[in-house]
């Protein structure tokens, strides 16, 4: 990825702990403001959505992936290119539904939750729900309506973190002219 010469070209590396701290500050502030886990989950999803609709253009501008022909290709691109590019991790794609419209991303590690433990009074909080919003927003901009949710979460006692993505439909009305 090349950057403009008026930016610091070498230090794209930021301390990832600063990122974890920033995200943590965000979530705890939302918890204080809304005092309701469900509401916080919703807000994280909305914020993620706002990030996703912008991030997709950056992703398309910098990677040279073209339009995906089916959902399987989409899954591979998300896991191998996008996650690698933005979070430095490569989740695995598994648990395809028979119809091929639903799959899981298994994350061995999640940079957002380094050092985090969920207290008992926040048992329904989906801490990394921002990621769901990001995926939903990004795919919506390329005309795919998807449902994204956490099926397993290491913060809530599961062994792995699993994101379940389900294809709902193609968004026809905003299709760029000429695409079928």
């Amino acid at each position: 990825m090349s950057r403009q010469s008026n930016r610091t070209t070498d230090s794209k590396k930021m301390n990832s702990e600063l990122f974890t701290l920033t995200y943590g500050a965000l979530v705890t502030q939302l918890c204080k403001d809304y005092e309701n886990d469900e509401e916080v989950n919703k807000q994280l999803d909305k914020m993620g959505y706002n990030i996703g609709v912008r991030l997709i253009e950056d992703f398309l501008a910098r990677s040279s992936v073209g339009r995906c022909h089916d959902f399987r290709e989409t899954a591979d691109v998300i896991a191998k290119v996008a996650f690698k590019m933005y979070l430095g991790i490569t989740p695995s794609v598994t648990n395809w539904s028979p119809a091929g419209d639903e799959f899981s991303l298994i994350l061995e590690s999640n940079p957002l939750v380094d050092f985090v433990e969920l207290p008992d009074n926040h048992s329904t909080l989906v801490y990394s729900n921002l990621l769901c919003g990001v995926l939903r927003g990004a795919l919506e901009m390329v005309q795919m309506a998807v449902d994204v949710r956490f099926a397993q979460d290491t913060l809530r006692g599961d062994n792995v973190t699993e994101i379940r993505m389900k294809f709902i439909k193609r968004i026809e009305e905003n299709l760029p002219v000429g695409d079928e």
Partner: protein
Amino acid sequence: MAIFSVYVVNKAGGLIYQYDNYVPRAEVEKTFSFPLDLVLKIHDEKVVVSFGQRDGIRVGHAVLSINGVDVNGKLFAIGSQLSPEVGSSGIEMLETDMFKLHCFQTLTGIKFIVLADPRQSGVDGLLRKIYEIYSDFALKNPFYSLEMPIRCELFDQNLKSALEIAEKAGTFGPGS
């Protein structure tokens, strides 16, 4: 100047950014930020006038001026229907003796249009570069709302430097 203008069109077909390189008149140059109803008329007339100087492009740009908001959306739709190829994805390049119009449509429906000297090379690379500049300075600005006119200083500056670089590197006119 080998690159005449740059336009950015949103998904709905509305013009969200315009930069004219060949016209040094200050009042015309940066009029790229409007609400989409009233001022667009005047803007459309200006576009028609500037394109009226070039022959062979009349039909397309008459459509541009009639359809207020659905400006380049219509041009694109007509372009893909006019194409002799089935399943055309719209206008990629329009060539006349005065200029070449290059268009790049992203998977998300944003269209980047560059009008350049017919001898200018490397416009494809320039279009990709403009896409990167858009994704950096427009989209990463949290105060910029999607689909709205782009009013970001940094976007302007970086776009201009990219155009300068492209012009220096690309054109094969005499004396270069």
